[in-house]
């Protein structure tokens, strides 16, 4: 019986995927699918499989994947030729999943990698979305709720004009951040190898109350402080600059930042993969870098540090120690 139920859910999930991948799906299709997902935990579970499948396909450049996976077709050579002609365009498409089209489609506001966006909400509050971010806005009679689904957002709240003022809340997978009249940034940090996913809150003005999802102790975070939130707890506040974050001006500020961290930060603003060799990850870098031109930033690294920047393709960049590979000139 159980097995039959699984098969039914999988068939339904497959039907949704067929609809959404047609090339003609609109926002209402995605919304309908989101409702189906929310209707039952088993639906969401099946959907998670769909996401993993999508990531698996996304990890393969089409120029390599299509000829190999369709090798049984007689006109394979023709396909190969066609792809070689399309060559340059192809990798852009496979990077699609890093932009997480699933989430972008269902989100109210979203940005692609390298993009910024400023949004003014119904009450006059303003959100600035950093690169690769997505938010959903859920206004109700009792609160002004903004869900951060991905990335980073800079919030400037306005007083509510409703007769009974509603609190302004940013929700993340780790908890809820209630604004107490204020400016702050919220950033989602995906889980790493040995670290859980966290929310980073930096308060620039006034205060924000942070409550972990588990319902643990809430903490008031003041201007000039930053905290990390896991689903279980809010960690102790650290001092933090109260200036608007550099990225809102399109600048990445580094103050004796480790190169490994710098490269990881830079990779948020650039489609594709940038890696830093461990031998040079500990070098320090300082300066203000324009995020609009990551090519130039990469070129600058070569000028200022004993490193080489190897571009295998526009999308595969590795920072390695100087002299690792012969310089083309």
């Amino acid at each position, binding site marked *: 019986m159980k097995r039959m139920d699984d098969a039914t859910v999988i068939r339904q999930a497959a039907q949704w995927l*067929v609809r959404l991948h047609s090339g003609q799906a609109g926002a209402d299709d995605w919304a309908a699918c989101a409702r189906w997902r929310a209707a039952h935990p088993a639906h969401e579970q099946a959907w998670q499989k769909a996401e993993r*499948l999508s990531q698996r*396909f996304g990890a393969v450049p089409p120029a390599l994947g*299509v000829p*190999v996976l369709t090798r*049984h077709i007689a006109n394979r050579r023709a396909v190969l030729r066609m792809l070689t002609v399309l060559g340059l365009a192809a990798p852009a498409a496979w990077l699609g999943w890093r932009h997480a089209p699933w989430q972008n489609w269902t989100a109210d506001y979203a940005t692609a990698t390298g993009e910024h966006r400023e949004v003014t909400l119904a009450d006059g509050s303003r959100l600035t979305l950093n690169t690769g971010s997505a938010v959903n806005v859920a206004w109700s009679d009792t609160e002004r709720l903004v869900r951060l689904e991905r990335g980073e957002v800079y919030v400037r709240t306005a007083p509510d004009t409703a007769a009974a003022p509603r609190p302004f809340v940013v929700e993340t997978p780790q908890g809820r951040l209630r604004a107490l009249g204020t400016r702050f940034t919220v950033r989602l940090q995906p889980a790493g190898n040995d670290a859980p996913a966290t929310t980073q809150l930096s308060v620039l003005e006034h205060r924000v109350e942070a409550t972990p999802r588990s319902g643990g102790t809430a903490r008031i975070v003041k201007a000039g402080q930053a905290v990390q939130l896991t689903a279980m707890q809010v960690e102790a506040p650290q001092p933090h600059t109260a200036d608007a974050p550099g990225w809102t001006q399109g600048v990445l500020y580094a103050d004796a930042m480790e190169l490994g961290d710098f490269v990881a930060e830079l990779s948020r603003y650039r489609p594709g993969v940038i890696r830093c060799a461990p031998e040079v990850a500990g070098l320090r870098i300082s300066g203000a870098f324009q995020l609009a031109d990551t090519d130039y930033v990469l070129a600058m690294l070569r000028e200022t540090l004993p490193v080489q920047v190897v571009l295998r393709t526009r999308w595969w960049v590795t920072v390695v120690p100087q002299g690792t590979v012969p310089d083309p000139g």
Partner: protein
Amino acid sequence: MPASSSVTSPASALAVQALYQDHHSWLVALLRRRLNCPHGAADMAQDAFVRVLVRPDALPELREPRAYLTTIARGLLHDHWRRRSLEQAWLDTLAALPEHLAPSPEDTLTIRQTLQQLDDMLGRLAPKAREVFVLSQLQGLGYAQIAAQVGIGERTVKRYMAQGFELCLALME
């Protein structure tokens, strides 16, 4: 050795043992003819019996044990040839790729492994369905474009896509 709990029943354990004694060398000989490689044949015969062990429920009513083993062996041979041809197509494609598109060595390894997983998943789709699915999921084409390129109707594209998604979702862990 992977084995489901039902293998522990003495009756099916005996049945597997009997099957092994009566048909093992016959199966190895059969596989050797197809594979042209004695070690590969012995390994594959071993794999075949492991599959029997994992599905002992099929054993009691087994009237044609050799037909049953042949079916399993055919599946294994199919996988074997598919992996061989994957390797060949992979090398051909890499060689034909313009240099500026070639992935770095470490990315190459990851891509190769992912392709293997995808290929295993798609192995059960009919060639046309597989082509359609790959054009959609890798190349990012819409159904109308796929229909035009493959020379089939859009309804058929949709049917193939549904088959592909169902199969893949069922196989995703």
